[in-house]
């Protein structure tokens, strides 16, 4: 079933891609092929392979239980928050929280998770920023 859904999604993707490709405005100065042809070829392959996947599905993959999916969803949310808050809160604080969260969800005890979070954050800050001179996000406190 997963492969059938995947195949249909792939075909829809190909269709959307074709529509977007046809909407490309061509410049008056164009080569013999133009900017549309290659995307259309790709779309054909995309659609064809999706159709094959839908009609000849592989055995069902093992999807995680709902609880684990929620877990992954939560991690994605945390990562997005991390990306958005990085310039606001500064590198060290944002990273400590994000790393501690991941460590906690991977099964660390709370204290260990806090320790991993702070350790990762400060470790990366020292190695990448102080030693190697990589510019990291600066928060209101300058780190």
């Amino acid at each position: 079933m997963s492969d059938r859904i995947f195949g249909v999604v792939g075909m829809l993707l190909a269709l959307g891609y074709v529509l977007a490709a046809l909407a490309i405005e061509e410049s008056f100065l164009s080569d013999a092929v133009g900017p549309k042809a290659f995307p259309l070829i790709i779309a054909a392959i995309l659609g064809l392979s999706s159709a094959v996947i839908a009609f000849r599905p592989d055995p069902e993959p093992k999807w995680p239980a709902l609880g684990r999916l929620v877990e992954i969803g939560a991690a994605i949310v945390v990562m997005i928050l991390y990306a958005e808050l990085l310039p606001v809160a500064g590198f060290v604080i944002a990273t400590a929280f994000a790393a501690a969260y991941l460590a906690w969800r991977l099964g660390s005890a709370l204290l260990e998770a806090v320790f991993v979070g702070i350790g990762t954050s400060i470790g990366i800050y020292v190695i990448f920023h102080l030693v190697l001179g990589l510019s990291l996000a600066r928060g209101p406190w300058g780190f």
Partner: protein
Amino acid sequence: METLANLGDGFAIALTWQNLLLALLGCFLGTIMGALPGLGPSNGVAILIPLAFTLGLGATPSLILLTSVYYGAMYGGRISSILLNIPGDEPAMMTCLDGHPMAKKGMAGEALSLSGVASFVGAFFATWGLILLAPQLVKIALLFGPAEYFALFALAFMTLGGVSSTNQAKSAFAAALGLGLATIGVDTQTGVPRFTFGEVHLYDGLDFLVAIVGLFALSEVFIFLEHRHGGSDAEGRKMEIGKLYPPISMLKQCMPTMLRTSFLGFLAGVLPGAGASLGSFISYSMEKRLVDKKGTFGTGDPRGVAAPEAGNNAAAGGALVPMLALGVPGSGTTAVLLAVLLALNITPGPLLFTQNPDVVWGLIAALFIANFMLLAMNIPMVGLFTRVLMIPSRVLMPIVAMVSFVGIYGISGSTFDLLVMIGFGVMGWVLRKLDVPLVPIILGTLLGNAMENNLRRAVTIDNGNWLTLIDSPLAITLWAIAIIGFILPLVIGARVKSGMHVRRDEEGSISD
């Protein structure tokens, strides 16, 4: 003779303190990454690219660092295969078969050092193979016009699909997806924006480094979260190493095996799309058929340890040949290395050898040096790396995730890129669940623009005649190989792959 002179120049470049230090660092990090299950050569190199990039390293030093990681990972993978019966990375899968039984017999130290020697032999001969074969390939590649290049790219995708997945349709899908992603951004020939949907950040196209780190490194974090696999695989197991040097008689017994499998592995590596996993697999299978008269393979035969290790290290060197000489990588990790070159504005291919000989020969010389460093690291100091296996993944994976974020943020300083990377991470996770190979996607995003430009150039030169693509004998040959490479696995591939899977099932613990 000219080759030797070039090689001498290469050594002059590689033997600076900075480059030696980078090679040493790369070997060390690579061995660790290879040893840790969950980090392999391709995602190991991927998370280090931003580092090399932001350090402001030039092309030669970055390549030295990253190929040392690549070679190191090939060495490191065997450690957890032998001690824990869990391959540290995919090519080390075959090493479990005889390596772990040897460790059970109390010969872990012998198995580790023997496989270290086998890795060295494989990598050493493969580097020579690279020196001898790459310039010949360059001579052929110089005859290529745009039409031939287009055919060559198609060949790379079609053969890669044949080997990397059990389902050809899914690898075709992956390749098309990657190529499609590459078309996002302003069209290089006419200057019109394509698939940008008015988003200014997309005018430059998607940064392939973002895609690589997301697909390879971040999706691994999701896999671990899914299984909540937070412990270390080494927990609660005794890891006795014992004697660290193999008896001379064992080395003698294994030497013919190593030489044969080095050659075979190198060939497997050169073939587009094959890579190290296939190299170690066919090496083991051939040796089993050839020398296993008493049926000792699988019960801790030293030759069964030497064969896959020599094979996968030789394949790693072999895979560099098409990457450097043609600009078409043959495996996942060489695709990542190609991304490094492209990010540094160096176009691999025949012209690389004439325009940037310092890069090529400096790299080759560094590979020789790195190989000796790895031998030294991996035999007397192997105990150090076995400790690394005790790091639980609940500590390791947050670090991997954060280093990925830092690297991407360090390059662009943009939140948008981080969000795109998370998107690729999620996509990578879903596609891995659906058994869609990720390497063709990467290859597609990397080669998409070059492929399209060559297509358009070829057709434009011939005034819009599309038949020009199959006009020259060279192009026809390439297309023929491509088609055979796509169809043949449908016939034979099933058999080879079922062999690989049967083995996996027998060794229940290997497949997660």
